[in-house]
C-alpha cells in the first residue's frame, strides 16, 4: 500500500472543525421543522464531519470517532424510527404518517403534537442519511483496499 504523507495542518484543522460541523448538523436537524434545514441536510452535515476526519487522518484514526461497523445499524435505526412514527399513527387508528393520531405522549395535541412527531421523523431521517453516507464511503474504500492487496 502506498505510504501516506500527512499534512499536520490538515490533520489538526479537520480534527478541530469536525465537532463543530457535527454540532451544526444537530442544530439543522433540531430546527428543521420551522426554519430552513431538515433531516436530510443535517444528516449530510453529520456525515461530512465524519468523512472529513476520514479523509484527513485515514480510517484507522477515524475509527476512534465513528466505527466502520456502525454505519448500517445507524441507517437501520433511522429508517425504523421513521417507519415507527408512521406505523404508530396507523396503530392509533389514523393513516400512515398522520401525526394527529400519534398519541404516545399524554396531554399533547394539535400543532404541538404535529411539531414533536415531525421532529422525531427528522431525527430518523438524519440518522439514516448519516449512517448510509458514511457506509457508502467505507464500502468504496474497502473495495479499493481489497484491490490493492491483490
Amino acid at each position, binding site marked *: 500500500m502506498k505510504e501516506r504523507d500527512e*499534512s499536520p*495542518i*490538515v490533520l489538526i*484543522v479537520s480534527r*478541530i472543525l469536525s465537532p*463543530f460541523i457535527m454540532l451544526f448538523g444537530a442544530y439543522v436537524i433540531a430546527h428543521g421543522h420551522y426554519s430552513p434545514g431538515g433531516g436530510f441536510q443535517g444528516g449530510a452535515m453529520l456525515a461530512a464531519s465524519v468523512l472529513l476526519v476520514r479523509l484527513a487522518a485515514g480510517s484507522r484514526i477515524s475509527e476512534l470517532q465513528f466505527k466502520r461497523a456502525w454505519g448500517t445499524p445507524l441507517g437501520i435505526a433511522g429508517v425504523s424510527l421513521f417507519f415507527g412514527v408512521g406505523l404508530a399513527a396507523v396503530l392509533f387508528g389514523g393513516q400512515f404518517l398522520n401525526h394527529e393520531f400519534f398519541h404516545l405522549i399524554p396531554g399533547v395535541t394539535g400543532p404541538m403534537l404535529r411539531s414533536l412527531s415531525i421532529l422525531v421523523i427528522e431525527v430518523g431521517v438524519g440518522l439514516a442519511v448519516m449512517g448510509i453516507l458514511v457506509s457508502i464511503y467505507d464500502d468504496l474504500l474497502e473495495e479499493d483496499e481489497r484491490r490493492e492487496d491483490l
Partner: protein
Amino acid sequence: MSDIQNLITIVMVTLGTFFMFVGSWGIVRLPDFYSRSHAVSLSDTLGILLILGGLMVYEGFSLNSAKLFIALVFMAHASPTGSHAIARAAFRGGLKPLFTRTENREK
C-alpha cells in the same frame, strides 16, 4: 450611530467584493495551477472575512451577529486549509510549477 454602522458596512462589503473579484479574475487570467490557487485562496478568504465582518457591523450586537461570527471563524480556518490541502496534493502528485522565464535564462 446607525449612519456610522452603514458607512463601515458599505466600505467593508465593497472591499470584500473587490477582493473576491480580484480572486476570480486571477483564476481566469493566471497561467498555471499554483498561481491560480495562490490568487483564489488568499483573496477569497480576505473577501469573505470582510463581507461577513461588514454584515456583523450592520447587524449590531445580536444573535444573528454571533452566528455570523461563528461562520467567520469557520471560514477563516476552513478556506486556507482547503487551499493548502489541494496545493499540497498537487505538489505531492508531481505537478511542476510553470517556470518558463527562469528555465530560458538558465539555458
